């Protein structure tokens, strides 16, 4: 049985439905992420798990036990807040010892456990410092240590990397992965940053307007988004308005107005006439000048519109005959030779018949 079960939970604020009949089950030891734009209800779910807020309907079960009547301080669930919420009048060691003191652990045990977790987050030399004397990354690590020291069943993390600069954020991501693996505690992570979610999580629930749009492993979520919202929210994706003209169990044939036909992977129950979009990741789109793409089932002529040099890759924006702009991403494996194509070059775009997907409206 799952460690945390969220069953048909709904939470309203006046007329606004913040969380709309959400069900999730999270396994022990999992790094689970709630991902979505601000206002999608992810933080409300986190607050209900922590006990700061209660569902209007539905149940939250931890190890099979309904949490409804357990106040926040009695739940074996700790939170790492976005603002860290360190106690400013206590030293690092006192902050970390706080949950142990509240749990009435013997003093010797408190000292030992505090020392051990300080070592684990590499802050032994900061034990007697006050929070205002720490850098953002150090505060972050104190907050993590404080949340983990009493070994909760669940650690909730509310956008904990949001306040850090990009470089530090990347380092902290690696630290988080290692820490979670070492302590073996279930992490429930809330973020609006899809890159972060993909890098850290075992599984991700993408949320949209209070509902769960899709729950999947990062690679499946990226490769097989089920809705236009998910496809759009996770990474970059090209979208072409399309309509099904043939549907077999081997492939889909799609008509794109002003462009022609596309052969796409099959989709169950996609009846002829269904409208939607053909979506394909920029790295799956190939680009060439002459006949080298002719063996591909899907290939179209276009004109390079813009190119964005990103160092390791270049992104080419190509305008097709129907005016749609498709992005193609090419790795720059030959140093110093970034611009294979220039703006206004006439090129060909192509992709394999099993690349991309059809997403219904």
């Amino acid at each position, binding site marked *: 049985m799952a460690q945390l079960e969220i069953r048909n939970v709904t939470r309203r604020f006046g007329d606004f439905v913040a969380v709309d009949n959400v069900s999730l089950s999270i396994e022990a030891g999992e790094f689970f992420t709630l991902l979505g734009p601000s206002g999608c209800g992810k933080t409300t779910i986190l607050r209900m798990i*922590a*006990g*700061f807020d209660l569902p209007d309907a539905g149940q939250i079960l931890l190890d099979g036990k309904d949490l409804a009547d357990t*106040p*926040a*301080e*009695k739940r074996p*669930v*700790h*939170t790492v*807040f*976005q*603002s860290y*919420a*360190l*106690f*400013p*009048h206590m030293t690092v060691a006192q902050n970390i010892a*706080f*949950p142990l003191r*509240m*749990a009435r652990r013997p003093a010797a045990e408190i000292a030992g456990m505090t020392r051990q977790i300080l070592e684990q987050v590499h802050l032994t030399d900061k034990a007697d410092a006050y929070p205002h004397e720490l850098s953002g990354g150090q505060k972050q690590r104190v907050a993590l240590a*404080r*949340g983990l020291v*009493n070994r909760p069943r669940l650690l909730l993390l509310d956008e904990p990397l949001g306040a850090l600069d990009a470089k530090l954020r990347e380092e902290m991501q690696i630290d988080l992965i290692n820490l979670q693996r070492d302590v073996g505690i279930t992490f429930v992570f809330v973020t609006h940053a899809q890159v972060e979610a993909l890098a850290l999580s075992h599984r991700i629930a993408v949320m949209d307007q209070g509902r769960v749009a899709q729950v999947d492993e990062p690679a499946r979520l990226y490769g097989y988004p089920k809705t236009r919202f998910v496809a759009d929210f996770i990474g970059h994706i090209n979208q072409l308005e399309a309509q099904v003209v043939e549907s077999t169990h081997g492939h889909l044939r799609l008509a794109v107005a002003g462009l022609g036909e596309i052969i796409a992977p099959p989709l169950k129950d996609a009846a002829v006439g269904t409208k939607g979009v053909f979506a394909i990741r920029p790295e799956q789109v190939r680009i060439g000048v002459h006949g080298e793409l002719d063996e591909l089932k899907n290939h179209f002529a276009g004109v390079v519109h813009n190119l964005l040099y990103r160092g390791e890759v270049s992104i080419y924006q190509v305008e097709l005959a129907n005016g749609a702009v498709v992005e193609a991403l090419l790795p720059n494996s030959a140093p110093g030779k970034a611009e294979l194509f220039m703006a206004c070059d006439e090129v060909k775009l192509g992709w394999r018949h099993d690349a991309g997907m059809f997403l219904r409206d």
Partner: protein
Amino acid sequence: MDNATMRRGRWLWAAALAVYAFLYVPLAIVVAYSFNDSRLNAEWVGFTWHWYEVLLHDEAMLTAAGNSLLIALVSSLVSTALGTMAGIAMHRYKLKLLTFMVLTPVAMPEILLGVSLLLFFIQVLNLTLGMLSIVLAHITFSIGFVAVIVRARLAGMDESIFEAARDLGASPWETFRYITFPLILPGVVAGGLMAFTLSIDDFVITFFTAGVGVSTLPLHIYSMIKIAVTPEVNAVSTLLMLLTLTMIVLAAKFAPDVLKGKT
């Protein structure tokens, strides 16, 4: 620095000097003349401790001073406790009516408060005016000041600190004991000192609620200067000033944030 800036700088200095002179010269004169060997505050004759000796043997003055200290101590302690609770409640529940009710006595003209408390004590509570009525009156007007200071202290704080405490296993009482109270302590101390100072030099409200038997320092000084301002009044004022200064120094030691204006 150009000329205009320098000129403006000089003017600023002059203005500042004038303000400080206006504030402190009268105080300095009071102190100086408390050591003046003359019955009048008119001219400097010579140095003496005489007026302090007179003060030490002035039974009525000592009784009044004792009353004032006792009233200030009791009323500031009680109003600090109540005002702290009111400040926390105002911050937590954001009820407009509550805020209005706590703050009204602060804005109310003292004379109005004095008269209405007098009527309330006599006609409603049927209380004999004396120490108790003065203490009750002082508590009434001090609560609002303490509440405002405590609330201001809370207003600048990250709310998630208190949630974090509960999240980490602290009961509501433990959250108050280990987190909220230590964090608002500078505000509580500042509020208590404010209440103490307000009480010890209050005249108008005390005048209405004292009745006939009990006198406080301000009431007694007032009754003395109706006859003549002797340097004994200067001496007692100097001591009062010394007491206030000591309290400020203590406050600075105990809660350095209060004077630095740091939250």
